[in-house]
């Protein structure tokens, strides 16, 4: 089981520092592991950042990398989770020509059925936003690409765990 390649979502709680992204990404780069997705943001704790990284590796590699990440001085804690253990989302934005909205009636159905949202419309273009799993976003991309997409971008995965994350209590203990 440990040697089967799986998708892992790594959540890393860190101090908010210049250079830490470089230090963390180097851990993957050095082992020739591609980062599928990366997101940095504030976390539930004030002043603590959270990295969310998605990689496809074996669990035994994952454990070692978790150790290497936690070894970094400014990393507070690193966790990794399988797909089943988390609730996750990505979001994406499509920019398309405005005339499509009127000429291709199907587009409105696609937007509606995919639970996407029109963010803005002007004379020249309109912008669709969609949050969801990667497969849902891929599907929407396929459906819209028939009509011609002016611009497309997708964010990194963000995720929360189903189980409680004990980071907050651990941090409180550290501070007192």
């Amino acid at each position, binding site marked *: 089981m440990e040697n089967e390649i799986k998708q892992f979502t790594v959540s890393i709680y*860190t*101090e*908010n*520092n*210049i*250079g*830490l*992204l*470089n*230090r963390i990404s*180097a851990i993957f780069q*050095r082992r020739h592991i591609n980062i599928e997705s990366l997101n*940095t943001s504030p976390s539930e704790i004030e002043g603590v*950042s959270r990295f969310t990284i998605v990689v496809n590796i074996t669990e035994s590699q994952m*454990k*070692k990398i978790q*150790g*290497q990440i*936690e*070894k970094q*001085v*400014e*990393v*507070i804690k690193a966790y990794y989770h399988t797909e089943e253990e988390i609730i996750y989302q990505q979001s994406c934005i499509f920019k398309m020509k405005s005339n499509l909205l009127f000429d291709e009636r199907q587009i409105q159905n696609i937007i509606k059925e995919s639970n996407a949202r029109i963010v803005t419309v002007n004379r020249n273009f309109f912008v669709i936003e969609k949050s969801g799993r990667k497969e849902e976003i891929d599907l929407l991309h396929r459906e819209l690409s028939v009509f011609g997409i002016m611009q497309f971008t997708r964010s990194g995965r963000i995720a929360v765990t189903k189980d409680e994350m004990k980071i907050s209590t651990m941090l409180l203990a*550290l*501070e007192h």
Partner: protein
Amino acid sequence: MKETQTVQNNTKNTEATERISGSEAIIKCLLAEGVDILYGYPGGAIMPVYDELYKYQDKIHHVLTRHEQGATHAAQGYARISGKVGVCMATSGPGATNLITGIADAQIDSTPMVCITGQVGSHLLGSDAFQETDIVGISTPVTKWNCQVTKASQIPEAIAKAFYIARSGRPGPVLIDITKDAQFEEFDFKYEKCKGVRSYKPVPDTDKNTLKAAAELINNAKKPLIVWGQGVILGKAEQEFKAVIEKAGIPSAWTILGASAIPTSHPLNVGMVGMHGNYAPNVLTNECDLLIAIGMRFDDRVTGNIETYAKQAKIIHFDIDPAEIDKNVKTDVAVLGDAKASLEALLPLLNANSHIEWHQKFKDLYNIEFEKVIKNDLHPTKEGLTMGEVLKEINIQTKGDAAIVSDVGQHQMIACRYAEFNKSKSNITSGGLGTMGFALPAAIGAKMAAPDREVIMIAGDGGYQMTIQELGTIFQQKVPVKIVVLNNEFLGMVRQWQQLFFDKRYASTEMTNPDFIAIAKGYSIEAKKVTERKDLKAAVKEMIDCEGPYFLEVRVEKEGNVFPMIPTGASVSDIRLD
């Protein structure tokens, strides 16, 4: 992406402060951390700090090396023999990049070191200014921690943190890059030592249950083997380690960096493991029923083929670094924590034992190794001096009290195999990185840190010439190191591999060497060359008796090989004796 500074302003100064420049603050911080010697090389972006060093030269001794790489290795030698933090300094750009080899060496060998680099003014960052290089980016993968300082007020906290991180937990190198404007800027200085970093736990808690489990395995083992590494030395756990092995009667072998933690002559010391280690501990690694690893990291040069490494044995791993557990070898019991505390707590849980029959196996295999290898190395009968007999002569004449600083290659393996040590921290060598050119500058640092000790550098003709310019440092600083070059006119270890695995195609391994004696004499270093066995003893004596630095070149056999040897990819138990 991120906006806050690496080091937050220390604005809570309520106590008395003094208004000084950033560069003077750097010196005051170093003094507060107990730094008495630092190694470095000046240049444009670090000049304000050198100007302060000039003013403080009665308090802090700056050693001008001949290359920044030499400064790092000197700082490493200083750290390795003393257990203190080595400090080096360089300017921006090429000065900073020249530190990288030494930093990488210190990182892989867990050597505490603080490197301070000057950087172009903060308004020039990112502009490809003269001698600007992204040294924080470049050094990130090879430092334990690094940061850039752009304001004078950040200096005290950055340096305090640097020393704390370098020396605590599993030690390592840190780098602080300080822009030139921060060096000039005046601010209200106050220094406080760092007592902790929120996100950093230097020593993991030891779980008492793991200690109990370890003790139970040890008490029930019939054929236990200990392999210890530098963790015993870095953790200052030599006495506790000795007490544990003596009580439990366990044969104990060392990794290259673990050497000298207990005396070579200790009856439970069964020699070195690994590629050119001793026969018995390598072979019996695959026969023991319990392998107890203490402060070592199962390097591939130690384990040989990992798939066939100690598969029959249960494995206990003591380490301070949780990332080492199960990294290379899956353990049955992992005891996290500081070696000294862990071994002290383990001792009362152990039953006294002697394992007499098991010990006999080590003796039997030693006798085989003696007949096939050691006898020829140390007591050669054929013509041509061996590296081993030089080591033997040094052992005899220093009575095992010298610190041996070796370079990288055949002579290093011979030095580690045959040097006799009475004291800990006596084997100073580049283990993990295998940095040729390490020895000469490292010996300078070691001798300056321990002036009362005999420090003998041993290098090959290849590695010696990689940092030979440091003879200039020895000359200027009058550092009485003893320099031994075992000259076989080859890059010997590579040549040995070419002989064994590349059908003797000696591609670029033969060296046409200069007159080493003339070079040494050019630096006013007393020098002698030995080409015959009969002259060796007197030459070594002359070297030891010499009060100043001394250079001894020994012409050794050209195509000598180091055995035993575990060929790459082979199992430890398939170690070759010839």
